[in-house]
């Protein structure tokens, strides 16, 4: 088999991390070094194969895809018959469920992004988790996570995609709850698992319905087949009583899955809590894998979601309407929360939700290419930001230890090292939180203040001095997120979404909604990103820990860790800038002219990804208005941030400047995240808990089930007692009675054996007389013998009884 054949190669891409997972869990987990080699080697191998595939396609198969308008020549794919079930349905039902892989432009770009981001995250993890006691397990889970994501990406059917999807759900559970000593961590893990499950169940119903309607789950058989799409779009679902077509209903279900996985509005609550996991997990979830998978799914299923609609003419199908409303609402909603958060990772979490809202909203109005483009650029700069924030947290923890060491240096100076080299300090956030109370007990005088939070941006400030690489890469990532004009990837992808919304706003009022809310969200994005950078890296250090914060304190090990953590940042920062130029509209002044020189057929990204669809999306003409919007939202956001956080330095303990502007009440609502968690607690969790503890536990379980069991058990016991009595009285009575009677007889008869020989002689005399009398009787009255015998038996019995009674009395 020729594995360099692109039809076959995708089979191999997910294999190494999956194998690595099993090898590490089963065999290699004892050795850190071996684990690192296996995990990094596996993901590197995947990356290498992916890179080979992407490179070959981009250089030699530029016309990959199905859009004939752009000269598409089909896709690379191979599949095997997996589950023969005899299903028949419209279109291409083969009577079997296939399993297979494929490479089309969409998953080619995913293969460009996912393994690269995963590889960088793995390398970063080397440094970040260097001192964690469960280091090897972490790598095993990360490998499984990466393997599942790659499976999902190369899958050619919904079932395989769903398998990867669910394995990722498991991995997110395992990794978010990785520091399970912390109650908040395992609660967050359960929350993430349960919340995404809500979407997954609905999505599974959609998949089942799709299979029932078409008899196949293969992307090629459904999405590349106009007949099937047309049939789905014209068949009323469930007899039509919902007023939906089959495509509409399936689409809504699939969008529901994405709402769960990509943390869109009603199901977004798990994602901020997922920050409880170690930071590489956050990067994995937020950039490379989990949430990208949700968006990837809707982009992948877009032909189905849009079947029957014509977004370019303003005709949107129900799933698209749902996506545009949910996406734009979520983008705005999450951005408003993000501005008020003080935890460095929470800000990024809400920022992720908001940016995913951008993508979903873009897809909702048919901006297929823009959504895919933003997915890729966002993955790079959000991975960068998360890894950067991890670097900050790492440094802050070291800074705190160093600050302690500096304070205690007066008394313990002879130990001779002020900046703590910290291998003794285990891992990061969680082990820290776990050991903190113990330290309190040990040093109540030294450490009277509450547990120091190394993630709180209010405790930071001025970190850029000691960590220039982290700062500059973070600023690049932040600029990309905020949409710094012209040079960052985020600008180009966001600009493309806004441009699409602008062009559609004439046809569809929903596009206006999307445009306005995304523009406002973009202002807020620029604002909170600027706030984050200003609070973290600029100004004066606000705490001792911030003053000492750094991770390279000169020791060889720290330098090593520092290198492992900063190298991925630099690569990602490079991607966060360069990735954007693949999508520049050729009509853009100056820059468009430059890029068209390299890509004469127009924006390469749009051309390439557009071929995924049967009909390539239209190329948008350049228009100044969306660009002006993009420029102005960035400038407004940054201007606000500058006014609030740079012009006036923020001081520790001071009220947040935001609070004065929006008012304390609104600020509190924002900080409390609109009380969504509280609402869910009130509306779902507490009633369910009541049902569980009171209704089910007390009444059903303890009352009915236990009651029934008690009755059964009691009656069985009663019957048992009955048998026991029967046994005791009748059976034991008989079997004990016989020996007892024999013993009694023996007891009474033993008085005969008195030891007095004269008594024995008397017995002999009596017996002799008795025999003599009988002989006389026999001789004289032969006829009376029977009667005499009877009389003698009676007399004998009476004598025995007499002796018996007297014997037992004697024994008493």
């Amino acid at each position, binding site marked *: 088999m020729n594995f360099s054949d692109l039809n076959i190669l995708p089979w191999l891409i997910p294999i190494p991390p999956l194998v690595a997972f099993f090898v590490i869990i089963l065999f290699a987990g004892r050795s850190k070094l071996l684990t690192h080699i296996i995990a990094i080697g596996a993901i590197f191998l995947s990356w290498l194969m992916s890179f080979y595939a992407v490179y070959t396609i981009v250089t030699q198969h530029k016309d990959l895809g199905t859009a004939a308008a752009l000269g598409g020549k089909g896709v690379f794919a191979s599949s095997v018959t997996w589950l023969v079930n005899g299903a028949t349905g419209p279109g291409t039902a083969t009577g079997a469920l296939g399993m297979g892989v494929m490479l089309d432009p969409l998953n080619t770009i995913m293969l460009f992004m996912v393994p690269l981001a995963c590889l960088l995250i793995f390398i970063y993890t080397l440094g970040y988790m260097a001192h964690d006691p469960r280091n090897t397990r972490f790598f095993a889970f990360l490998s499984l996570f990466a393997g599942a994501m790659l499976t999902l990406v190369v899958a050619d059917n919904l079932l395989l995609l769903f398998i990867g999807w669910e394995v990722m759900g498991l991995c997110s559970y395992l990794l978010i709850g990785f520091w399970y000593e912390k109650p908040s961590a395992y609660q967050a893990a359960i929350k993430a698992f349960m919340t995404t499950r809500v979407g997954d169940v609905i999505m599974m119903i959609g998949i089942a319905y799709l299979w029932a309607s078409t008899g196949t789950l293969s992307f090629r058989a459904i999405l590349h087949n106009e007949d099937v799409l047309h049939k789905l779009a014209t068949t009323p679902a469930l007899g039509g009583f919902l007023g939906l077509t089959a495509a509409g209903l399936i689409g809504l279900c699939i969008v529901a899955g994405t709402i769960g996985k990509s943390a869109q509005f009603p199901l977004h609550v798990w994602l901020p809590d997922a920050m409880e996991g170690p930071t590489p997990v956050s990067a994995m979830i937020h950039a490379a894998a989990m949430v990208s998978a949700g968006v990837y799914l809707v982009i992948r299923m877009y032909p189905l979601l849009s079947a029957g609609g014509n977004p370019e003419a303003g005709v949107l199908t129900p799933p698209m309407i749902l996506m545009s409303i949910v996406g734009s609402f979520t983008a705005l909603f999450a951005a408003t929360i993000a501005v008020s958060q003080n935890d460095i990772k929470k800000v990024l979490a809400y920022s992720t939700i908001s940016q995913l809202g951008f993508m979903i909203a873009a897809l909702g109005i048919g901006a297929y290419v823009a959504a895919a483009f933003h997915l890729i650029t966002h993955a790079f700069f959000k991975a960068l930001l998360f890894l950067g924030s991890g670097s900050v947290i790492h440094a802050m923890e070291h800074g705190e230890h160093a600050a302690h060491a500096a304070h205690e240096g007066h008394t313990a100076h002879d130990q001779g090292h002020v900046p703590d080299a910290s291998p003794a300090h285990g891992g990061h956030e969680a082990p820290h939180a776990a050991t903190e109370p113990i330290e309190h007990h040990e040093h109540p005088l030294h450490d009277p203040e509450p547990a120091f939070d190394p993630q709180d941006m209010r405790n930071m400030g001025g970190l850029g001095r000691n960590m220039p690489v982290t700062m500059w890469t973070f600023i690049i990532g932040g600029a990309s997120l905020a949409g710094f004009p012209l040079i960052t990837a985020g600008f180009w992808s966001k600009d493309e979404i806004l441009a699409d919304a602008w062009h559609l706003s004439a046809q569809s009022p929903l596009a206006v909604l999307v445009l306005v809310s995304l523009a406002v969200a973009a202002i807020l994005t620029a604002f909170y990103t600027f706030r984050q950078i200003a609070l973290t890296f600029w100004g004066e250090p606000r705490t001792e820990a911030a003053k000492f914060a750094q991770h390279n304190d000169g020791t060889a090990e720290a330098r090593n860790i520092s290198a492992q953590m900063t190298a991925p940042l630099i690569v990602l920062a490079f991607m966060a800038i360069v990735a954007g130029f693949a999508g520049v509209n050729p009509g853009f002044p100056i820059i468009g002219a430059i890029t068209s020189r390299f890509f004469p057929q127009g924006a390469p990204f749009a051309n390439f990804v557009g071929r995924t669809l049967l009909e390539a999306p239209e190329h948008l003409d350049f228009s100044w208005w969306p660009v002006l919007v993009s420029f102005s939202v960035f400038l407004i956001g940054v201007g606000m941030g500058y006014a609030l956080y740079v012009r006036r330095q923020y001081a520790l303990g001071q009220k947040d400047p935001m609070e004065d502007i929006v008012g304390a009440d609104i600020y509190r609502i924002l900080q409390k995240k609109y009380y969504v968690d509280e609402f869910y607690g009130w509306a779902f969790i507490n009633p369910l808990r009541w049902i569980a503890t009171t209704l089910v536990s007390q009444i059903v379980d303890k009352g009915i089930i236990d009651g029934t069991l008690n009755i059964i058990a009691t009656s069985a016991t009663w019957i048992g007692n009955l048998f026991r009595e029967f046994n005791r009285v009748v059976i034991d009575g008989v079997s004990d009675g016989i020996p007892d009677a024999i013993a009694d007889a023996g007891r009474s008869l033993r008085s005969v054996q*008195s*030891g007095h020989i*004269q008594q024995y002689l008397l017995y002999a005399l009596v017996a002799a007389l008795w025999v003599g009398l009988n002989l006389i009787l026999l001789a004289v009255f032969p006829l009376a013998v029977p009667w005499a015998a009877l009389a003698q038996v009676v007399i004998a019995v009476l004598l025995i009884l007499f002796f018996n009674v007297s014997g037992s009395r004697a024994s008493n």
Partner: protein
Amino acid sequence: MVPLNAYLIVAAGLFSIGMFAALARRNVIAILMGVELMLNAVNINLVAFWRFLTPATEASSGLKVGMSGQAFAAFVFVVAAAEVAVGLALIISMYRNRRTVIAEDVDTLRY
């Protein structure tokens, strides 16, 4: 000639006296003497019955046959002598060990 019944009455009287002694006396030696009396009563009976009931016949060898009654009595004497020898030996042993010759005191062989 003295009739058979007289012998039998004497033997019965002797037996009763012996029986009384064997049953009623406390001294073991007296009991043994009672037993001897009873044996002798039996001997009287044996010889008396032999004398009155068995015809004296002459065998060709010259011996008087039908001497079984006397032979039986002789056996009883021998048995009685052996019994007395054993009995007295027991009594001496008993006296040495327990310092008593009272039958009731020697009741070790009981339940």
